[in-house]
Every structure is written in structure tokens, then in C-alpha cells.
């Protein structure tokens, strides 16, 4: 009975209606415009995209050249939590960096230091030269024949004794010196190679056979909706929490016979159910739409529902739980700021896994139709992530129960204490 009352109270609130509007807007402007019909690749196309391979012949020269270029300019690009940072190293750390470069190239530290700052760094690779231009294309020059040798005033070579394992260790050290999140934290990014028709066909088959089409689409659906579902439930929770205070019924509620546990959890789950309802309806709608689009194809009719429950529901739960907990504690909208900051950091950290891969991200990103094997390879990480956030949400609501119980007994009044500190500290009665 109370569940239904709270459910009704949630769906009748203005913030809930705006929440539904936001979901619809994200769905229409983002998901619908970014997903095209999945079809088998055609032979003879100019490009099938790129893929990343752990090929040391490609990775080592590319990575060393990049590091040398950044070292020369003492300007290292890094994305520690997804945001651009231009790192400038002090003399000591530049000294350590030159030692790393010296070991990888076999060139003395003094020569490297002297060479630093010269434009157009090139690299000697085997018998010829391998040069990466501004657009990232790799070209080779043969000694004595190419103009490149004269054009490039500065060049370094790879030490023939450098093993791939040692190279990885040194790059890890370089990343640490930069402060983490540099290009050298993920060396596979230096191993980009063009995809062939055969590669594209393998990817297509994975989508059809392993994902049954809808699995791949549901990941993109979850990606877009996850962005807003990780933040906007907090507004609904805060607005509902503050409603009691505005209506001045808090004290009245404290005197009711219902236990704090039952009161808080019923209220919370009613709110989560209401918040999840439009997601489920949209999942059903997109399932019907996709089934119509792929008539005669064997698709997974439950994929959108499964991804909604597995990936999106924990996001709703944790965002709503932060709203409930901090509103019960402070009787202020501070939860919006707290969740906003967490979301902002989370969404940008998630950019590192934007095409899949996952981690401890609050917002699960998978902004590519396909990458099925990346999803399957990281499935356990994904499951652990989502279960952890669900448990965190439950723990926050349990904490809210405890706080609520203290307030009921008159043992806690955070807002009153804050007011005393900030507002009335010097006010004296004029009477």
C-alpha cells in the first residue's frame, strides 16, 4: 500500500516528468540518429576502419618516436581522468625521462639532451627510416635515396637489444613520470592498422551470431541512456526528500509507527521502480522497432530488457541512493552537487573505455555498434562493476535508515548545526 502511494507520489512529481522528458530527448537525438541498419560488409571498399594490434614492430617505433617528440618539447599530453592535461616536467624528471629514452634508443643522454628541441624528429628503423607525419601516417625512407634524410635534422634509432618486455617496463616508468593517463599507459593505441574486408566480416559475424543483432544495439542504447541515468535520478530523490520539509510534515512522519527501515526502503524502491519504468517501456519500444527492422533475422528479443536491468538499473539505484542519503542527512539539495561531481569525473573517466573495455566506471560506456569480443572478454569486469554499484546503493539506503532513526529520536540535526555555524553565530537578541 505504502509502496503504491510512494510510487504514485514519484510519478506525479514535476522532476519525474522532466526526467522522462530528458530520457526521451536522449533516445531520439542520440540513439535513433546514431544507429544504422547492420549489414554485411561489401567487398572492395576503400576503408573498413582501423583496429589495434599488439604488434611490437609497429608499436615500439611509434611509441618511442612519440615519447622523443614530447620529451624534446617538454610537453607531454595526458588524460589522467579523461581530461586534457599538458604536463611539463621539472629538471629531475626530465633527467629520468632522458635515461629511459637513452636505454630504448642506445643514444647517450648528452646527445639526446643536445638534440632536444629540434623540430621534425625522425626515427631509424632497421635498414631504412620510419617517419610519422602530422596526420599519423607512417612512411619509410631508404638511406641514401630519400629526401627525408636531409629534411629531418634530428633522428633517433631503436636499440637492437631492446626487448618488448623491457620496452613495456620503460614505457610504464615514463607514464608514471608524466603522472599517469599518458599515451604510454595503453601501448596498444600505437599499434593501429587498417581493417581488411576479412576483419570487417569477422566483426559482422560476431554481431549476428553472438549478439543476435539486438545485443550490439542494446549496448549503444545503454550507453546513451546511462549518461543521463547516472545523474538525473538524484534530482527526483532530492525533490521528493525536500518535499516533506517544505510541507512541514517531517515531525509528523517521525511519530508514525512504521519502522525507519521499512519506511526508507519502501520509499526508495518505489522511487527506483518509478524511475526504471520509462526505461523499460523504451526498451520494449525499441525491441518492437528492431524486430520490425530485422524481419526474418534471428534476433534476441530480450536483449534490450536484459541490458536495461543489468547495466542501467544499477546506475539509477546508485544515483537515487546518493540523493536519498544526503537529503536525509542534510535536508538540503547538496546531493545534487555531490552526485554532479561524481558523475562529471565518472563520465570523463569512462571516455577511456568509450568503445567498451569497462573498469570501475560509474557510467558504463560502449559507444560502438559491435566490439562484441571486447564486451565478452570484459564481461566479468562488467558484472563485478554493476553488482558493486548495486551493493553500494543498498548500503547508502541502509545508512539513510540509520540517519533517519537518529533524527527521529532527536539525536541528529545536521541542517540546524550548519545554520548555527554559518548563520547565527554572531546574532544577538536586540530585545
Amino acid at each position, binding site marked *: 500500500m505504502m509502496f503504491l502511494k510512494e510510487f504514485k507520489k514519484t510519478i506525479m512529481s*514535476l522532476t519525474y516528468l522532466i526526467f522522462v522528458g530528458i530520457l526521451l530527448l536522449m533516445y531520439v537525438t542520440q540513439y535513433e540518429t546514431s544507429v544504422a541498419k547492420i549489414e554485411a560488409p561489401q567487398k572492395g571498399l576503400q576503408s573498413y576502419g582501423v583496429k589495434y594490434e599488439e604488434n611490437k614492430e609497429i608499436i615500439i617505433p611509434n611509441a618511442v618516436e612519440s615519447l622523443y617528440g614530447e620529451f624534446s618539447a617538454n610537453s607531454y599530453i595526458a588524460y589522467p581522468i579523461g*581530461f586534457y592535461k599538458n604536463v611539463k616536467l621539472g629538471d629531475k624528471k626530465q633527467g629520468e625521462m632522458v635515461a629511459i629514452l637513452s636505454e630504448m634508443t642506445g643514444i647517450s643522454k648528452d646527445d639526446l639532451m643536445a638534440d632536444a628541441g629540434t623540430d621534425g624528429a625522425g626515427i631509424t628503423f632497421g635498414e631504412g627510416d620510419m617517419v610519422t607525419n602530422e596526420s599519423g601516417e607512417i612512411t619509410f625512407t631508404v638511406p641514401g635515396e630519400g629526401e627525408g634524410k636531409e629534411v629531418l635534422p634530428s633522428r633517433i634509432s631503436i636499440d637492437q637489444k631492446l626487448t618488448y618486455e623491457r620496452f613495456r617496463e620503460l614505457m610504464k616508468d615514463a607514464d608514471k613520470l608524466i603522472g599517469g593517463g599518458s599515451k604510454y599507459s595503453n601501448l596498444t593505441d600505437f599499434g593501429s592498422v587498417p581493417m581488411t574486408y576479412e576483419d570487417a566480416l569477422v566483426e559482422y559475424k560476431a554481431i549476428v551470431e553472438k549478439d543476435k543483432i539486438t545485443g550490439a544495439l542494446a549496448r549503444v542504447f545503454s550507453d546513451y541512456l546511462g549518461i543521463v541515468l547516472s545523474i538525473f535520478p538524484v534530482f527526483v530523490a532530492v525533490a521528493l526528500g525536500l518535499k516533506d520539509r517544505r510541507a512541514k510534515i517531517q515531525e509528523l512522519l517521525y511519530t508514525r509507527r512504521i519502522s525507519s527501515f521499512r519506511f526508507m526502503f519502501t520509499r526508495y524502491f518505489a522511487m527506483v521502480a518509478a524511475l526504471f519504468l520509462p526505461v523499460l517501456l523504451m526498451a520494449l519500444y525499441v525491441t518492437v522497432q528492431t524486430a520490425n527492422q530485422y524481419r526474418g533475422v534471428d534476433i534476441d528479443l530480450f536483449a534490450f530488457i536484459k541490458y536495461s536491468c543489468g547495466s542501467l538499473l544499477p546506475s539509477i539505484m546508485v544515483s537515487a541512493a546518493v540523493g536519498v542519503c544526503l537529503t536525509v542527512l542534510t535536508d538540503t539539495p547538496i546531493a545534487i552537487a555531490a552526485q554532479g561531481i561524481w558523475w562529471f569525473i565518472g563520465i570523463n573517466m569512462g571516455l577511456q573505455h568509450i568503445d567498451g573495455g569497462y573498469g570501475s566506471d560509474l557510467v558504463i560506456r560502449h559507444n560502438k555498434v559491435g566490439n562484441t569480443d571486447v564486451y565478452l572478454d570484459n564481461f566479468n569486469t562488467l558484472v563485478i562493476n554493476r553488482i558493486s554499484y548495486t551493493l553500494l546503493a543498498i548500503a547508502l539506503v541502509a545508512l539513510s535508515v540509520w540517519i533517519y532513526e537518529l533524527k527521529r529520536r532527536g539525536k541528529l540535526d545536521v541542517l540546524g548545526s550548519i545554520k548555527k555555524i554559518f548563520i547565527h553565530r554572531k546574532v544577538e537578541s536586540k530585545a
Partner: protein
Amino acid sequence: MFSVVLRKYSFIAKSNLKHNFLIHILTALLLLCLTPLLFGIGNLDAAASAVPLEMIVVLLGIVLLTPIFMPEQQKDIRELIETKCTSQSGIYLIRMITSVTTIFIMILCFALFMSLNGSNFPVLKYTIGTFFGAFFLGAVGVFFSGISDNIAVGYMVSLFYYVFNMAAGSKYLGKLFLFSMSKGSFEEKYWLMGTAILLVVVTLLIQTVIRRVR
């Protein structure tokens, strides 16, 4: 006469600063302190310098301007205030001027701090551009909290506008795109400022009408 009015409104401004505004200033300062931890703010070129300003510092508008109707959220306080002869619109204007001035000063200080850290960009131009964006986001919050009488709605819509800019880019927003300086364009900032002024004026008019009807 003028000195009496000036004294009254300066008292209101001081009182607002002490009773309502302090917590929002602290939140805004926290946001500014967080920015260098999230972004690099030193040794940036003009395009890269616009990123922290447009991505985080612009949020000062939501933090400082949106809550101008917050003190009257409680019905009994509002009813008491409306019995007084002091113009409510005047009080809102005082709060708005306080918020807007604080936003501008904070943005200017942050831009100067970036410049001192070796970032190379036109400080005044970027300060004004960021301020216009912040004022617009705050005005969206003011408008929606004003017409709904719900502060959470104001925060929600203004934050969604920001999120939508991140997700959709300039595709759907045209001249009202928030992150134009990072793309090398300043024209959008004038549109943002113009729309912000319009939103604030409309909100104050609506508030006046609502009070008279009530």
C-alpha cells in the same frame, strides 16, 4: 530619500550574503579548486585554455545564479515576506547582481590564474565568453525554478542543458552552443548573453504576475 533606499538595499545585500549566499559561494570555490585537479590549466594554447573554462568554470552560473529564489521556497517565509512593503523584485535584483558580480570576479580570477600558469590566451575575451555562458546556464535555472517554484527543477534543466551540449554538440543547439570558444568561435556567446537577459526579465515579470494573482 536616495540614501534611505541605498541603505535599505545595501542591508538586504549584506543580509543575503550572510544568510543565503555563503553556502553557494563555498560550493563555487570548491568547484574552482577541483578544476586544476581535473584539467591541466598550465602551458595551454588558446583552444585548450577554453576547455576548462567552458567545461567546468561555466558551471558557476548554475551554482550561484539558479538558487536566487531558494529562500522563498518555504511557503510561510514567502507569505511573510510578501506582506512587507519592500519590493520583492528589488530583492531578487539585489540577489542577482550579487550572484552575477561574484560569477564574473571568480571567472576573472581563475582566468588570471591560468594565465599566470603559462597558458596563452586572451584573458579578458575568454573571461567575458565564459561569463556569458555561465550567465546563460544560471538564467535557464532561474527561469525554470521561477516558473515551477521548485529549485530542483531549475538545477535539473540547467544541468541537462549542459549535458546535452556535451552529448549532442552544436548539432541541435546552433547559436546557443555552450562550448564554442573551444571550437574557435565567439559569436555564440552574444546569443547566450542575449537569451539569458531575456530569460531573467521574463522570469521576473512572471514572478510579479504570480505575486499579484496570489
